[in-house]
């Protein structure tokens, strides 16, 4: 146990997976095989493991994008079992960042970032103030009216990060957020992710292949063949 893990052990658990199973193709492909996982408030967790080991699937289940075949997922101590709570979850409690930015190409940076606020019905002036804050911190404030096609890969991923944080979620789930970036940009974006997670106080759970980057997180969780082999506290 490291000092960091000692500190976090008294914090509330915000994400929990209990004996979660998930398969595809009518059970032909078992992706998760009884995963137990939890993350506490403000913690940064790296999910590491080879391709196909179930990292992304676990993130999707934790974020309410998919449902487990068996087991329970809880966010902030509330079990995800109803559609309505999933909408609320995606609007206010969880932000997603994907490997590909998943921005809408015909909209500007500003418009892309405002999408979650439109979904949640947040008034425009509050949304714009939040956007200004985030783009100042991510160095994108001069690109607000740029279309997505005009942005570099790093800028796109930072835009996706801003969008994910627009509604002040307490949890950020990132699926290979630097997977499509070059080494230098990858490191910069990753550090930005950690810095913002720290200043916003959000819990960050991130799937990554890059062990060097993963080492910068509070905790590394190793996955293999649909199971969590052993959690490591860094």
């Amino acid at each position, binding site marked *: 146990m490291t000092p960091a893990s000692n500190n976090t052990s008294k914090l509330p658990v915000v994400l929990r997976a209990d004996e979660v199973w998930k398969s595809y193709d009518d059970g032909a492909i078992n992706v998760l095989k009884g995963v137990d996982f939890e993350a506490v408030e403000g913690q940064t967790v790296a999910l590491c493991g080879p391709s196909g080991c179930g990292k*992304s699937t676990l993130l999707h289940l934790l974020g309410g*994008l998919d449902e487990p075949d068996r087991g329970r997922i809880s966010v902030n101590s509330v079990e995800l079992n109803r559609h309505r709570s999933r909408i609320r979850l995606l609007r206010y409690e969880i932000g*997603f960042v994907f490997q590909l930015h*998943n921005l*809408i190409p*015909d909209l500007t940076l500003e418009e892309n970032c405002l999408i*979650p606020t439109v*979904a949640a019905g947040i008034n425009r002036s509050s949304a714009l103030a939040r956007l200004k804050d985030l783009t100042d911190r991510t160095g994108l404030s001069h690109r607000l009216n740029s279309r997505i096609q005009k942005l570099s890969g790093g800028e796109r991923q930072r835009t996706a990060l801003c*969008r994910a944080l627009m509604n002040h979620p307490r949890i950020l789930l990132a699926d290979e957020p630097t997977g499509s970036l070059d080494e230098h940009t990858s490191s910069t974006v990753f550090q930005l992710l950690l810095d913002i997670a720290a200043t916003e106080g959000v819990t960050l759970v991130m799937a990554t292949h890059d062990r060097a980057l993963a080492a910068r997180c509070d905790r590394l969780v190793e996955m293999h063949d649909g199971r969590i082999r052993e959690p490591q506290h860094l």
Partner: protein
Amino acid sequence: MIFLKLILTNLLRHRIRSLISIAGIAFSVAAMLTIVTILQGAVGMFSGILSSDSQIIVFERNVSDLFFSNVPASALAEISTWPMVQHADPVLFGVVTSSDHPIITCFGITASDARLRKATWIEGSRGNFAHEPNDVVLGQRAAEFLHAHLGSSVAIGNGTFHVAGIVKTANGFEDGGVFMPLAAAQSFFHKPGASSVITIKLTDKKFAEAFKQRVKASYPDLIALEDEEFTRSYSQFKILKATAWTVGGCGLILGGLGVANTMIMSVFTRIREIAILRVNGFSNAQIATMIFGESALVSVFGAIMGLLLGTALLFILKLIPALHGYVDVTIQPLVVLIVIVLSFLTGVAGALYPAIYAMRVRAVEALRFE
């Protein structure tokens, strides 16, 4: 604002497809507007013939068409004497032919008839009407296509008639018709002593109900209807209106299928975008609103273009000499409203399946294949 931009962006992203969809609705709306307006105009003109300076029409009960109605002269004679009647004008309708025109409407009337009183006499005068049994007065358009003028002879049906006057009337049917002395028309159409209808002007409109009841009591084979009642209930008008709306409706359904096709393609080609919106908290209702909003915009643009196109078409039709007087381009606001509402509903119906499909998009599956 972003919501609207999401809708507009998608329409602009596939401009040609959107334009084809809008054109589909526009042509449907134009077709519906044109057909309905022409037929309503025709109905209005025919009603106008009957209600010329009168409030009530008397005709034979249960006839499918006024051309088959026979009102005996005895009824006309008696009804004319009723104190509530200011004047009663018999009209005998008939269809005659000439060498180039298979259908010409013929009106057998008396010299005192309102149609001749109200008409503008281009050649001849009302005093000359019915001096001779074979005298006819032609509507201006009829005179044009029969190449007739005052004093000339025209061959109509099996007879040859002397043109005693040419009149201009606002009514297309009358302007393209032939006015014959009643007696000559009765002889020509083998309906001695009969008329098709009697048009009645009352001394006061408040006697209308009493008049109708008296006709019912005195002449069980006849029926008296106020002009508006007649327009509403005459089966030929009903058939015409139903036909117009049905044909127009079919056009709109075709337009709606075009919208449906566009919207289905629109949803299929941006499943990923819908998934992104879902991940960012869009509910089913918001996704559906976006899809319906898109189809509603297509429908509204289509309806506006269709109304402009239809109006232009009606004006062009009005300019065609052969249709002069037949096409009434007075577009009724109610028709415009109905057309807009129908096109809107068609667009929404066209978006129903695409919206349901979009609501079923599972973000996790759509985003998995990066």
